[in-house]
């Protein structure tokens, strides 16, 4: 396999050099930016000028991308596979923009890796293929020979090589097991930490989270302990953060009535109460799939919600699916779903929504779907469809189409101005990234 590295920093500062040593089936490995002859000889990696990328055939390459501002290039290169190496927002970067485009990069990627456990957990709640590139397991779990050198792999390094191999050999037995293995290692670590730190609510909460992701019923016990410790420490503001989590655990166990009752206890805002009413309606009508998906969504487990909804054929599932795609930044899928719905809008019972969105007959719009005040533009969880459309145009290099989409929300209280400012910021950030790489080459 050929690899192309799109880095945020120069080769000297590139933090994933060891992971590059462990890449499976290494063939041609390129670094977008400058490298000295010594660095090339030492690493076996060759530099690629940024100008070359414009004519690069990405079809035979796997991209390793560690800055979200490479996203337009990733889309243009059309690589065989994309691996997003997510990092917390570096100093000096606009945090909102960094987080947004990191999420979009992750959604576009075939595999996500990160050294940040916060990002690892967040991404686990959004999509199925996420590798944690750090760990606390002191033993060697794998072996890799490269020429004369024998590498001993730590647990996450072994997971990294398996996850990458799984991209092009998805059919081989146990290809997806690495995900469960890594979650189990994290769960075991936090469960053992609970023994050492029995009064630490966060450690118990993390143990509960990993056990929940594994579908292990012990999650409830650790969450209960965490909730109890929070209350004992006078952190009474934990109904949303802790108590609501019980409803996701019960939903996974199939105890939907209990899950709804638990969610109701934590529903305070008008939107939450309206969601609770809808949930009870689904409970009474036996729409368990919709109910389960909604329970996962309100617990931020979008990945699980999407998994359930993609398997439902009822019309009510579509707006919920759209909403979850948007929440997890799978915006291309969201637009595709919207287009499919628009195509079938001529059929009976389809309710067209302003701004291009549609809902099929009988499908109630999700509670978090609302028309933006003073406009007819639908907003899903605070994100408007034209903004999504415009952002995707921008990332695909269709600048004018992006401007047109952004102008469609121009009436919404100066929204367009903010979007144009973000557009300029993104272009500047991408320019800065490439400028740095160009300087290296110079």
């Amino acid at each position: 396999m050929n690899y192309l590295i799109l880095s945020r920093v120069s080769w000297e500062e590139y933090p994933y050099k060891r992971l590059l040593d462990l890449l499976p089936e290494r063939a041609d490995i390129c670094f977008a930016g400058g490298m000295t002859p010594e660095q090339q000889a030492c690493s076996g990696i060759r530099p690629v000028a940024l100008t070359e990328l414009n004519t690069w055939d990405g079809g035979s390459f796997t991209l390793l991308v560690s800055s979200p501002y490479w996203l337009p290039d990733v889309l243009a290169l059309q690589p065989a596979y994309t691996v997003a190496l997510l990092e917390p927002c570096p100093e000096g970067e606009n945090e909102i923009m960094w987080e947004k485009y990191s999420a979009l990069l992750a959604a576009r990627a075939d595999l996500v890796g990160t050294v940040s456990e916060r990002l690892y957990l967040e991404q686990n709640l959004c999509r199925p293929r996420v590798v944690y590139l750090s760990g606390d397991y002191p033993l060697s779990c794998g072996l890799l020979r490269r020429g004369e050198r024998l590498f001993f792999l730590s647990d996450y390094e072994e997971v990294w090589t398996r996850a990458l191999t799984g991209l092009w050999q998805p059919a081989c037995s146990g290809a997806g097991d690495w995900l469960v293995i890594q979650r189990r290692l994290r769960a075991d670590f936090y469960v053992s930490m609970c023994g050492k730190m029995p009064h630490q609510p966060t450690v118990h909460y993390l143990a509960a989270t990993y056990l929940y992701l594994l579908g292990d019923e012990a999650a409830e016990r650790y969450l209960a302990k965490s909730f109890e410790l929070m209350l004992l420490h006078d952190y009474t503001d934990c109904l949303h953060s802790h108590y609501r989590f019980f409803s996701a655990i019960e939903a996974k166990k199939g105890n939907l009535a209990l899950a709804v009752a638990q969610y109701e206890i934590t529903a305070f805002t008008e939107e939450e109460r309206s969601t609770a009413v809808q949930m009870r309606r689904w409970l009474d009508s036996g729409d368990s799939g919709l109910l389960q998906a909604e329970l996962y969504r309100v617990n931020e487990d979008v990945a699980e919600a999407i998994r359930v909804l993609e398997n439902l054929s009822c019309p009510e599932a579509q707006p919920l699916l759209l909403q979850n795609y948007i929440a997890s930044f799978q915006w291309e899928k969201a637009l595709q779903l919207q287009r499919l719905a628009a195509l079938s809008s001529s059929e009976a019972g389809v309710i067209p929504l302003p701004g291009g969105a549609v809902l099929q007959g009988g499908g109630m719009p999700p509670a978090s779907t609302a028309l933006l005040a003073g406009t007819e533009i639908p907003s899903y969880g605070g994100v408007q469809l034209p903004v999504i459309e415009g952002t995707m145009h921008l990332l695909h290099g269709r600048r004018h189409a992006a401007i047109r989409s952004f102008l469609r929300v121009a009436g919404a209280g100066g929204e367009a101005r903010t979007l144009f400012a973000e557009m300029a910021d993104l272009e500047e950030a991408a320019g800065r990234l490439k400028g740095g790489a160009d300087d290296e080459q110079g």
Partner: protein
Amino acid sequence: MSYESDYSASIERLAGRYRYLEQEGLLPLPVKDGVTLVVLLRHAGWAAECLNLLHQHSGASVTLIGVAMNRDFPLPPLAEAFPGVTCIPYESGNDGVNEALAYAGTSYVALIEDTVMVSPGWIGHLLWPSIDVPAVQVIAPRSSTELGEGREQLHFGTDLELSAYVSHSLGRQQGGWHEVEVLGGSCLIFTRELLLRVGGFDPGLVRRQLMVADWCLRARQLGIRLALSDAVYVHSLHPLEVDHEGKQEGEQAYLAKWGLDASAVKMDTDAGILPVPADVSILLPRPGIPLGRSAVAPVPLVTAVVFSDEILTSGQSLRSLQRLQEQQSYGNIRWVWVRDIRSEALPEIAVREQDAVIAVQGEKSWLHALENVSALYGSEIVVYLSASADYDTHYVERIAGAVRHGSADLVVSRTGSAMEETATDHGWPGPTAKKLPLERIAHRSGIVPGRITRGEPPYSLLLAPGPSLAIGYIGGPPELNASNMQAGGEVCL
């Protein structure tokens, strides 16, 4: 210059010269006929590198034997890549390790998992302790799989880092070692002389770590000392997929074998904690395990005592016996039929050589024979079976396992079948009853189980157990087991 400082200077000079020769790889192993390395092959991705490093860093005088430890291990490509290695394929029911050990013809033998990665100088330093002190005949390096103080969990990025660490350690520790009470890691060196005295590794303990520890304890019973090298470290890899298969079974078997009370000792083999008897020398010698192909995973001999309260003809008896024999899956049963022939002429029932038919006349003699049958036929476990009762295929296996791995002298099965939920429907006398149905009983050898008397249907014979016996129960609903926990002299299995 004083004599002492002269002496010290010459020692230092000699040590320096020795070290130079060692670093240059000019020193042969301190044994004439070399060492046989028996490598346990489980991990296709690691085995070749393990063999590579063993070849590279063990010198010319080693003989390598690879033993495939599971059916799926791809032996042919490995055999092709390492033509000098003798390969033993996996064979169900045959313990390949004991077979390989039987082939070892050198004065030292090493048993190594294919997860072990060695570095230069590893083997020579492991041989010296037994030359320093002849009573030391078992030596292990430090590793992440070793028990107790020998357990070191270190991280190395590459083989270069490992070699640098080991080289530093060899220089710093100056060949040091110390005695330990047990070893259980993935690399062990011992003398062939000791191997022939102790015998093979006990496959009944299921887990390799327990087999090694058990073997070391058996060696200590012969007065042999065990050494842990301070100087040598080998790097063990750990598969991401944790294998818990047979862990509990192996641990129970180990505790039972060494008479250790599970409730009184701490055992966590994953963390390198394994209890050992306070003084192995005062314990009776544990049975040896033969080396070679015959060392098929042995299951202990069970004597099945069959009885019938009805007077059966020879033909009926034979059919009943055959039915029971065909029914039971357990692989090592001696069948003993205790018949009351009343006034009949001595019947002829053809049985296998190891089986027996005891014919007695009159009920008193019959009951007496049933009570004392274990004194006549030595075996580890005695199980009573009624010719008219129904048992499932694994009944003997289950109840014999409970006797073998538990601490009770006598075990009662509440059910004849794993499918039966409770025996109360069949007139089960209850957990605190002083009379137990004979057809549901098994006991350790060497004891008289108690008095056998006539009972009421459905149980034709009842046993009043001896007052000093610890009684355990298996099967039936859990609440009954819980109540047994509280009953004096009774244990829950």
